[in-house]
């Protein structure tokens, strides 16, 4: 049965192998070229520390050459799950059900469960390997770019988040299981491909950033640390009174409106404004920040949600196929 699954998946498996070999080769080459470019433009310090260490001319030349490539690599990792779901997951069973070849498989001396599992494993495992390898290589490359690359935007940046940690694997599992399930239910390859694409994109969009609410945030007072400079994600803000307690939003809004419209008619400067706020008892502004160091927690929640969907969909697929009509 394993032989048959390999043989019937040959086109997809060869495509995956091609993507893996070409993708890995190109990424390794790009990285080494980029490291050379950074060295020759004397941007090594800039890449490592950023900010004042960067000579703006050299930096602009570098970004003009490389930022599009960075985007393409990130988009590749973002779209790989849905490509796998549409081109490998959706046709896996739908094609057999559409052509009636599942009857051929069901009437040999092999149980449906074995047939199904061998097909699932042979289709899914190589796809996951390709995702993991390419994801790692992109991460390795973008890390070498340091502050010159998109990683400077921090782990909470939606695109960075989508290509980091376990998230791409969870998305791939979900997309694959979604395609397989819709394929078994619809019994039509094209319907399964289209519907899997639509549903995946919708679910992925709706759930972007939703897991962040489960990650505990830190309260940072403005005078102590400017928010979000260290890759943290600001999820809220407000004012503190003299006792260090959060002022209700309605009150702080009313006060700040009053302070902005100064009696003299001219808009107040920053110092004047803050002084006015302090007079009303609003001593300090604060920000609620998700620190970059707890992004892993959001990734785990993300993986639990998408992985959970995938498990349910795979269970549904198995149930629907095992059911004797």
């Amino acid at each position, binding site marked *: *049965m394993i*032989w*048959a699954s390999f*043989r*019937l998946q040959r086109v997809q498996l060869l495509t995956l192998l091609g993507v893996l070999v070409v993708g890995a080769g190109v990424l390794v080459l790009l990285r080494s070229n980029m490291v050379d470019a950074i060295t020759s433009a004397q941007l090594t310090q800039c890449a490592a520390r950023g900010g004042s260490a960067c000579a703006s001319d050299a930096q602009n030349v570098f970004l003009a050459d490389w930022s599009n490539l960075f985007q393409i690599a990130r988009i590749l990792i973002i779209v790989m799950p849905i490509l796998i779901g549409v081109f490998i997951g959706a046709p896996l069973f739908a094609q057999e059900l559409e*052509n*009636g*070849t*599942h*009857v*051929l*498989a*069901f*009437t*040999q*001396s*092999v*149980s*449906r*469960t074995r047939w199904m599992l061998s097909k699932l494993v042979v289709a899914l495992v190589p796809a996951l390997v390709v995702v993991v390898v390419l994801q790692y290589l992109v991460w390795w490359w973008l890390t070498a770019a340091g502050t010159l690359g998109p990683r400077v935007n921090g782990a909470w940046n939606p695109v960075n988040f989508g290509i980091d940690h376990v998230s791409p694997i969870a998305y791939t599992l979900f997309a694959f299981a979604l395609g397989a399930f819709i394929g078994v239910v619809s019994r039509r390859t094209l319907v399964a491909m289209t519907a899997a694409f639509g549903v995946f994109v919708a679910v992925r969009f709706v759930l972007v950033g939703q897991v962040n609410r489960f990650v505990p945030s830190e309260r940072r007072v403005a005078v102590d640390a400017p928010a979000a400079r260290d890759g943290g994600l600001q999820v809220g803000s407000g004012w503190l009174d003299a006792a260090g307690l959060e002022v209700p939003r309605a009150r702080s809004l009313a006060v700040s409106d009053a302070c902005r419209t100064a009696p003299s008619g001219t808009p107040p400067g920053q110092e004047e404004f803050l002084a006015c706020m302090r007079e009303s008892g609003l001593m300090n502004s604060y920000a609620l920040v998700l620190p970059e160091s707890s992004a892993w927690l959001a990734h785990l929640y993300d993986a639990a949600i998408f992985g959970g969907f995938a498990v349910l969909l795979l269970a549904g697929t198995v149930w629907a196929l*095992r*059911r*004797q*009509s």
Partner: protein
Amino acid sequence: MTMPSHAGPVLPVLAEGAGKRYRRGWALGPTSLAIPGNRVVALVGPNGAGKSTLMGLITGLLRPTAGSIAVFGDRPNGRGLHPAVSYLAQQKPLYAQLTVAETLTFGARTNPTWDQRYASYLIEQAGVPITAKVGTLSGGQRTRVALALALGKRPRLLLLDEPLADLDPLAREAVLGALMTEAKSQGITVVLSSHVLAELEGVCDHLVLLHRGQILLAGGVNLLSANGTPLGELVLHHMRAAAAQETAA
């Protein structure tokens, strides 16, 4: 052959009130039927009579909504077909992207009782190029490949759903000839379904006549036409009687 504790060899098929009902009604009403070993059975009836449903119940592709069915003493289930049974569905499903040789390998990998030499011999007899892709074969050649896949399993019961339906007369004769040669020499019980009795009249020695999900007639050909009535007339007579009964009711 497995022997039951009481008497005689186990029947290839024994249905006891087995039936299949869908939302729109009975596809096959509760049916009791015994198919004895070593026979060529013609399963005849108009389109929609329940022939494919009966085969589906025997293969385990369908689950009976009533009664029970036993194939060589075992109840068909979703855990693959009984090793002694082969089934060729009406559409003759084959993987179009495999070559003929790979199709035989598929049979070998999915059946513990596979006889590769025998299957290759059948392909050779049929004159089908072994390296050709299944998708490029003619209807007759496809049927021969599907038949080799079914026979290579070395079944004791071979179920063929409308095997001749989409073949030209020449291919029909060749397929039927090859099939009967193998059935006779290997001692296989063959069940062939058709909506045209004339196709099978010369080869079958057992008849099951289905009409609207009911069995009108079942038994050995020599017994059914003992008084010399040709089989075709007998079948027509029963069908007319059934139709008349329906109009009356």
